[in-house]
C-alpha cells in the first residue's frame, strides 16, 4: 500500500471518529438539563474545532500533493449553509446569515469550498464580528462574499505585506483560502481571493471561482 493511501485511511477514520464524538456530545446535551449545558458546551466546541482542523489538515496534505480534486455541479447556498452549521456551534452568539439564492450554481469541490468558508467565518469571528453575511453571484463564474462587521483588515494585509496579524490560531487562514481558490482551475483561469474593508466598518472577503 502506498504511503498516501495509509495516511488517507488514518485521516478518514479520524474524521469519522470526530463526527461520532460530535453526535454523541450533541445527543448527551439534548438529554441533560439546561443548567449543566455550560459544562458540556466547551467540549462540544473543541471537538468541532478538532474536526475542522482535521479537515483542514487533510486538505492541505492533498493540496500539497497536487492531487486532482473532484469538481462537480454544486450549490453555493448549500455549501454556505454547511459552513454555517459547522461554525455556529463555535460561535453561538454571532449572527450568521445565508443570503445566497437557491438557484445560484457553481462548479467546484464542495468539501474544499466549505472549508474555505469555515475558515473565513472563523477569521471574521476572531476579528470581533457579531454579524456575518454570505452572498454569491453566478452571472460570471462564481463569486462568494463573506461580509462582517468586525475590525476590518490591517493596512499591512490589504497591501499584501503580511498574511496575518493574528496571535490566536495558526494564522494561516487567508493563505489556506487562497490555496483552495487556486486549486480551482478551468483551462487558463484559476480561482482567486480578494479582500477589502467596508466603508461602514468590517471586512469583505470574496472568493472568485472560474
Amino acid at each position: 500500500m502506498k504511503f498516501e493511501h495509509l495516511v488517507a485511511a488514518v485521516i478518514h477514520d479520524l474524521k469519522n471518529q470526530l463526527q461520532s464524538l460530535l453526535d454523541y456530545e450533541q445527543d448527551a446535551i439534548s438529554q441533560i438539563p439546561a443548567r449543566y449545558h455550560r459544562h458540556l458546551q466547551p467540549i462540544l466546541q473543541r471537538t468541532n474545532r478538532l474536526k475542522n482542523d482535521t479537515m483542514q489538515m487533510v486538505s492541505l496534505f492533498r493540496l500539497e500533493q497536487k492531487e486532482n480534486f473532484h469538481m462537480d455541479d454544486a450549490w453555493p447556498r448549500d455549501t454556505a449553509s454547511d459552513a454555517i452549521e459547522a461554525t455556529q456551534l463555535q460561535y453561538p452568539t454571532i449572527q450568521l446569515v445565508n443570503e445566497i439564492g437557491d438557484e445560484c450554481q457553481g462548479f467546484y469541490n464542495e468539501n474544499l469550498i466549505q472549508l474555505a468558508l469555515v475558515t473565513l467565518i472563523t477569521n471574521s469571528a476572531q476579528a470581533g464580528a457579531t454579524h456575518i453575511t454570505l452572498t454569491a453571484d453566478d452571472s460570471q463564474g462564481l463569486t462568494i462574499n463573506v461580509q462582517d462587521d468586525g475590525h476590518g483588515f490591517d493596512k499591512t494585509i490589504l497591501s499584501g505585506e503580511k498574511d496575518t496579524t493574528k496571535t490566536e490560531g495558526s494564522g494561516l487562514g487567508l493563505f489556506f483560502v487562497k490555496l483552495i481558490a487556486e486549486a480551482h482551475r478551468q483551462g487558463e483561469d484559476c480561482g482567486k481571493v480578494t479582500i477589502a474593508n467596508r466603508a461602514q466598518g468590517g471586512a469583505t472577503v470574496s472568493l472568485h471561482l472560474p
Partner: protein
Amino acid sequence: MINLEHALQDKRILIVDDLVEARSSLKKMLTLLGAQHLDTATDGREAMDFIMEKDYDIVFSDYNLGKGKDGQQILEEARYTHRLRASSLFILVTGENAVDMVMGALEYEPDNYITKPFTLNMLRERLTRIMTTKLKLAEVDASIDAEQIDNAIDQAEALQGRYPKLEIPLIRVLGKLYIRQQRYAEAIKVYSTLLNKRSVSWARLGQAICMHFMGDSDSALALLRRTLIDHPMYVQCYDWCAIILNSMGKAKEAQKELEKAVEISPKAVLRQMELGRLAYENQDYPVAEAAFEQAMRLGRFSCYKTSHNYLQFSSAVRHMLKPGSERSQKLRIEKVLRAFDELRQDYAGQDSVMFETSIVEGKTHKTLGNEDKARDSAKQAENVLKRMKNPSHEHQLQMTEAYIDTGQHVKAKDMMRKLKAEGMNDKDLRQLQVLESNLNQMSIRDHTAQLNARGVGHYEKGEFPQAIEAFDQAADYEEAGISVLLNAIQAKISLIENTQMDVAQLKDCYQYFQRIGPMGDNDERYERYERLKNSFTRLKRAAGL
C-alpha cells in the same frame, strides 16, 4: 424545489452499510426527513437479496463494505440485472477520497454521492437537490426504462433548452445515450460543448470512446493518456486503453493497462475476467491464474458467476504445473482440484461444461504425470460427448486431443476421419492439422522406441552389426533422442573394438556427437557420454585421423 418530506414518504429505500452505527444513523436521519419504508443490509450479498426481491426507489450504499462486494459492485449488479430502473436513485455514500473513483464510471455510475461525514442538514440539502434533478429528468428515465432510447434522446435534448442549470447531468445522460445508439459524432459534439467550459474527466473519456469507434484509435489513446495524467485514479480510462490497444493487436500492452486498473480497483469481476483472458492469450499464466482466481472468488455470489472462470483458471494453472506432487505445487494442485469439484457440483446439468471440465481435468492429470487419472477423465469426457446431441467441432477436436494425450490413437484417428468428412471452418481445420502432426510425431516416437529396443536386444547378445542397423534406423528420424544416439555410438565403438578399425563407423560416431552437442556435467547421461567420447578419441587417434 421539491418538498422532501412529501417526496420521501412513499419511497422504498434500502440502506447498505457494514457499520451498525452508520446504518442506524442514516436510518434515523431518513426517518426524520420523512421516509417511511426503509430496509437495511449489512453487506453486498444481503443487499442483492433485497434488491432481487423488492423494487426500490432509492438505494443508499456505502462504497467500502469491508470484505465482500463494494458499493460500486452492488450498483453494477443491480443495473446489470435490470433490478434497478433508470428512474430509481442509487446514491453512494463515501469518503471524499473515493469520489473521484466512483463518479468516473460511465457505464454504471451512481446517480449521485454524498461524502462522509454528513449531518442531517447536509443530507436534507443534498437529497433535495438530487431528487429535484431526478424529477426533472423523469420522462427521460421513463423512456430509458422502456428501452425507447431515441425518444429519451429527444426528450433530453428538449430539456437542455428548458433547464440550463441541468447542463451537466443532461450532457452526462445524452452522451451515454448517443454512444449507445452509435451516434458518435453527436456525442463528441455534446461532450465538447461541456469541455469548452468545464474540465470534466468523464466527458474526455466519452470523447475518447467515440473517437475509437469512429476509427481514430491513436487520437483516442492520446486523449486517454492525457486524462490519466490529470486523473491517475480514473480506472475506466485504463479499461478503455486496454480495449483500444487490444483492438490494435497490442495484447501485451493492453494487459499492462488492465493490470494498472486492477491494482486501483481489484474488486470488479468483469475486469478481472478480461485481464485473465488477455494474460492467458499472452501466455502470462501467473497473471491469468491470479485474475481468474479473483474472478471466481468475487463472482461466487454474484450474477457474474460463470463456469468459464473456473475452466480458465484451471487451464492457466495447468501451464504452471510440473510432473509429480512436490510440496511447492501442492497448494496449486489443491486449488485446481477444488475448482473441478465446484464445477461438477454447480454445473452438473450442463453437458458442455461437464465435458470441458473433464477435458481440462484430464490435461491437468496428464501434466502431473497421472496417466491413469488422465485416462479416467478422458473416459468421462467421452461419455458426456456421446450424450450431447450436436457436439461442436471444437468439442470433438478437444476429445481428439484427449485421445492422443492418453495414447488412444485409434480412437483419435477415427474421430479425425469423421471430422474431415464433415468439413470444418479454417480455424478448426488448422487445429485438426496440428493434432494430426502431433499424432504423427507420436507414432514416430513409438517407432523409434521399438527400433531402439530391438537394437538393445541385439547388443546384449553381442550381435553388433544387427544392433547398429537398428540404432541407425532409429537415429535416422530427427526426433531421435540422445539415448538412441548414444546407443548407436556405443554399438559402433564395440564393433570396432571387437573386430577391426572401421573409419566409416567412426565418421558416423562423429556425426552423432555433433547432433548431441555439448552436454552439461549435471546431466545424468554425462558419465556415459564422457566415457564414449574418450573411447572415440582414442580410436580416432589409432586410425590416424
